[in-house]
């Protein structure tokens, strides 16, 4: 790889990284601040099982979504690392 190609590759890697992080943080925001706080009164009119839905997001659902998000990020990021040949393992 020439130095120019190397720089272009690094820039493309960083852009892919930012896109992924942006997507994940959008979900992070909607699951907690959106469903758990801003829309809680609207969602509480719906019940799933014994939970009002907004209350469920605030006290259970958001935490599970955070966990799923990090799992997705770890896998997607590992793929981006390899695609740009910048992985460390």
């Amino acid at each position, binding site marked *: 790889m020439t130095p120019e190609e190397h720089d272009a590759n690094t820039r493309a890697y960083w852009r892919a990284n930012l896109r992924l992080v942006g997507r994940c943080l959008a979900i*992070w925001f909607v699951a907690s601040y959106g469903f758990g706080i801003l829309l809680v009164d609207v969602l509480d009119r719906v019940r799933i099982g014994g939970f009002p839905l907004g209350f469920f997001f605030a*006290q259970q659902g*958001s935490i599970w979504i955070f966990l799923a998000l*990090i799992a997705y990020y770890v896998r997607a990021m590992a793929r981006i690392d390899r695609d740009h040949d910048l992985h460390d393992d």
Partner: protein
Amino acid sequence: MSLQLLTYLVVGATFVLYVAIAVRTRAGSTGEFYVAGGGVHPVANGMATAADWMSAASFISMAGLIAFLGYDGSVYLMGWTGGYVLLALLLAPYLRKFGRFTVPGFIGERYYSGIARVVAVICLIFVSFTYVAGQMRGVGIVFSRFLEVDVTTGLLVGMAVVFVYAVLGGMKGITYTQVAQYCVLIAAYTVPAVFIAFQVTGNPIPQLAFGDTIAGTDTPLLARLDQVVTDLGFRAYTDGSKSTVDVFFITAALMVGTAGLPHVIVRFFTVPKVADARRSAFWALLFIAALYTTAPAVGALARLNLVETMQPGPVGAPEGNLAYEARPEWFRTWEETGLIAYSDRNGDGRIQYYDDSNAAFAERARAWGWRGNELEVDRDILVLANPEIARLPDWVVALVAAGGIAAALSTAAGLLLVISAAISHDLLKATFLPRISERAELLAGRVSAALAVCLAGYLGYDPPGFVAQVVAFAFGLAAASLFPAILMGIFSFRVNREGAVAGMLTGLLFTLGYILWFKGIFVEPMAENVPENWLFGISPEGIGAFGMLLNFAVAFAVSAVTPAPPAAVRELVERIRVPRGAGGAVGH
């Protein structure tokens, strides 16, 4: 075997385990002392991070807080878990790639400035010390209640144990003791929760029981809970009383503060590779979620148990209230500690537990001959009293005591270590005594850890009135000072020394000033702490998130009008953005 003897045995056995691990994994170099030599497996590190993070407050206080706050308690649940998303996506992998020992070390090098490093050390010490004092207090409370020694003796024993493994073992020692402590604390938290969930709903998994129906009926647990608390004039459990804007900002301050806590960040310096730092964040949140999704279930079950114990019959009928003479055994034992108190205001010998600040309800209560709420319950006792309330076997009670101590000790050790690293590495080695040898630096690290243990013990023994308040504010301060500086250091080439220092100082001073204004630590409050007086309706608990925004704004504005960082810094940022080539962490 008596409960006390059993508790001594269980707690004593865990102490022997912690010290044995520490002796086996003693640190021999500064690399091992600060970052465990950088060779910790991501799963082990995730477990250690979970124990490091979950403090006496998480273990002892949180479920109790949620039990009394209901929906408003969600700020702690979302705030203290959502921060790990920020940590995993925005900070941990890059700081691992940077590969130094400490958080101020990153700030000092990225902003090519000794002043930035010292400002970061000041933020770090302030945040960590307030936090550690609360942990030592937690150790004292658990000791005095379960081992029936006085708080001072309990504190001294706790200090001695932390001293042995944090001072000798350094990061390497605390990593593996934290793994053991996680196992103890999660077992201690889950076992009683499973029993209680099963007793109330017939479903043994607390997370499912939370959404299940009361055993033998079609009524969901939460619907029943809303019913019984509103019958006594309390706000419905699933409703909140805080304003939406305040809930939003408190959650944000706790989330960002979590991501900015130095003792949590530094755990990610101990894994071998960048990819391991990401994986480790997943494992950390998984282990944390095991407790954090159980806690709200425990809170709801505990509140229902409490209300139904005090109000066994219909509301308004004289015999509907529990007679004081018939109070259960756990009530008597906790009464001795003063953490639960009864005052018979209307002289009928029965316990009226209701919301006497609710004006509409107070009228009806008056007609029944009630003369005010007669029961004061300290929020901190619910988790500790839970096994007794549910009449669980003695070994469960002993296990809970050991779990509370494990939670407090693991967090205290992590905090003491970042304080000692900030002093021996950032202040001595990097700032005042650059020629210090590795042996001398290691000794300095041990001495400062030892001094920090003593000071923390003193603060726990004689907490100045403000400690308890300030623990919650440590998050706001971390959010407003350290987090933005680190984030901009990674994601911006342009933010420079002047911008970072101005931003950190603005965030720290604004947040501290706002808290002092309303809470009056050291001085009299300047204004009453009520929503009408707050800036945009944001309480002092949530103001750190606003301080963070100010930090960003000031840092960008100042950077725009001052010279760009040197080329070497640009190369540094380019280097930390790619995973390839992460070596072990080094000092310089």
